[in-house]
């Protein structure tokens, strides 16, 4: 049975892109152009264009319904764009791949609500997320090498869960779950991390540490952080994109954005 599952697997072009190195010769990791998505006539995204550089940490803000989550859905293949193009690196057209394939290609996503495997231990959560051949047969016969164990231990240290390796993930605090999910993303060795409200529900101290973690990750990875917490954004942001009604309203540094009359109108004018 596993054989059959594998056969159809290969024909789907699966695992194919995973071996290819991402082509980022022009320094751009993600490129969205004129993306439009509508749900029953409501335009969730309206000719949205955005580009993220390699190693950049970008914050995306905007009022509710501005299209932040829909944008992430389009990038990760959960929602298909009606119009426009989305490229990952120079050569990967995201519209042509499934969620799993996009994840394989190197885009990791953290959801608004932490989604981890509640019945698995912290260690197992990271093991499952780890970059590996994720086809059925390979997974059935997989065994952890010592370097893989080291990598998991390293990540546990990074997310400050090294004392909880065997703890069932469902028993972690909310903030720890958020970190575990970030850790799972890191295990996938993504080129691009999409983080949807990563500090929601965290204590001030946890928020602070998360900020430090993100800053240490920028450079090695590209990060897109969607966040409502302006204090947090101010602390980590270098470049900010403001979304409004499905398209980009303003882009620039914190002070540029704060002084933009259009942004002031959207945020204060209602």
């Amino acid at each position, binding site marked *: *049975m*596993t054989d059959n*599952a594998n056969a159809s697997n290969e024909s789907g072009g699966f695992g194919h892109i995973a071996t290819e190195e991402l082509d980022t010769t022009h320094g751009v990791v993600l490129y969205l152009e004129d993306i439009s998505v509508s749900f029953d006539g409501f335009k969730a995204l309206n000719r949205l264009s955005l580009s993220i550089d390699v190693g950049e940490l970008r914050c995306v803000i905007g009022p509710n319904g501005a299209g932040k989550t829909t944008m992430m859905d389009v990038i990760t293949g959960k929602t298909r764009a009606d119009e426009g193009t989305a490229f990952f690196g120079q050569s990967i057209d995201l519209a042509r791949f499934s969620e799993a394939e996009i994840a394989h290609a190197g885009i990791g996503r953290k959801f608004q609500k932490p989604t981890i*495997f509640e019945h*698995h231990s912290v260690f197992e959560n990271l093991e499952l997320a780890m970059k590996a051949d994720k086809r059925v047969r390979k997974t059935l*016969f997989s065994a952890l090498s010592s370097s893989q164990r080291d990598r998991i231990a390293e990540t546990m240290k990074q997310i400050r869960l090294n004392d909880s390796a065997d703890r069932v993930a469902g028993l972690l605090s909310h903030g720890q779950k958020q970190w575990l999910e970030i850790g799972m993303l890191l295990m996938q060795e993504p080129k691009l991390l999409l983080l949807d409200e990563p500090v929601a529900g965290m204590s001030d101290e946890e928020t602070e540490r998360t900020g430090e973690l993100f800053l240490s990750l920028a450079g090695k990875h590209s990060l897109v952080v969607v966040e409502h917490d302006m204090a947090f954004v101010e602390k980590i942001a270098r470049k900010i994109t403001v979304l409004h009604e499905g398209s980009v309203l303003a882009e620039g540094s914190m002070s540029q954005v704060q002084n933009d009359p259009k942004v002031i109108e959207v945020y204060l004018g209602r």
Partner: protein
Amino acid sequence: MSRLYGPKGWTLIGVLSFIVFVVFPVLSLKTSPDSSFHLSQYWVTLIGKVMCYAIVAIAMDLVWGYTGILSLGHGLFFALGGYAMGMYLMRQIGREGQYQSDLPDFMVFLDWKELPLAWWNSDQFWWCALLVVLVPGLLALVFGFFAFRSRVKGVYFSIITQALTFAAMLLFFRNATGFGGNNGFTDFKRILGLPITTSETRIMLFVQTGIFLIGTLLLARWIVTSKFGRVLTAIRDAETRVAFCGYNTVHYKLAIFTLSAVICGIAGALYVPQVGIINPSEMSPANSIEIAIWVAVGGRGTLTGAILGAGLVNFGKSYFTQAFPEYWLYALGLIFILVTLFLPQGVMGLLKKKT
């Protein structure tokens, strides 16, 4: 080896194997029928039957308890395996049937002159053994492919699997389908040339079933303790996250669903020669629901629980249907409600709490 079970687990399996492979056969064959230690054919058949059900319960637990897919059509895979074996047993009757024809009796009765195409090669044991595996396996593969690819989940999946087994039952009820209509297959005489009703053959089938039960248990245990097994439970708990981790969940669900169907098919093939009959009522929706009840009673997501549940419910059933025949279905419904309300982890949950 040590990954599968600890010393306690292996000892328990060893003791149970000793009972099934040595104690029961000796008590059945080497004691005189008058001795109070004698294991009568009634018990050999009943325990053998329950072991077949336990195999089905393990298969069900793999898809429901571990992967979170509630299939209410597993009785169909069991029955298909049984029918494939039944075809071979019908051909083994030879000319000893009532009409003394080369054709099975029901075909003579329908005035058919030759075997339908589906019966091709059915006098060959190896061919029927192949069908036992292939028919349920292919059906599960094709059905699962379309269901999982279309992201049919939860209660919708349960409903269409019920519909599938119901449709198959109606099909097999028809005489024209060529599998004996509502009487199905019965009056078997021989298996592999051996007379089927003797104590020796019965014990042979009994031991075979025991071997396959333990084999299935170890295979299932190996699967659920592998990384593949951890992916399955992860699919149960947060399927979207599994997909975003880069796993193609359709392939995983398809693999375990197909394996589960194949195991059920083999269990059905072991069941039919022991009970001596297979008919379309095995495909009735209620049978498939009962399988889910075994697993729920024993404890979803534990293999020991699945075996325990199949044992408890079925020995209970055979007692009840003799003592108070009318009330069995009420009792079964009550058990299911009580377990759901008070024992969400089944009997295993209760045992774990105690220790």
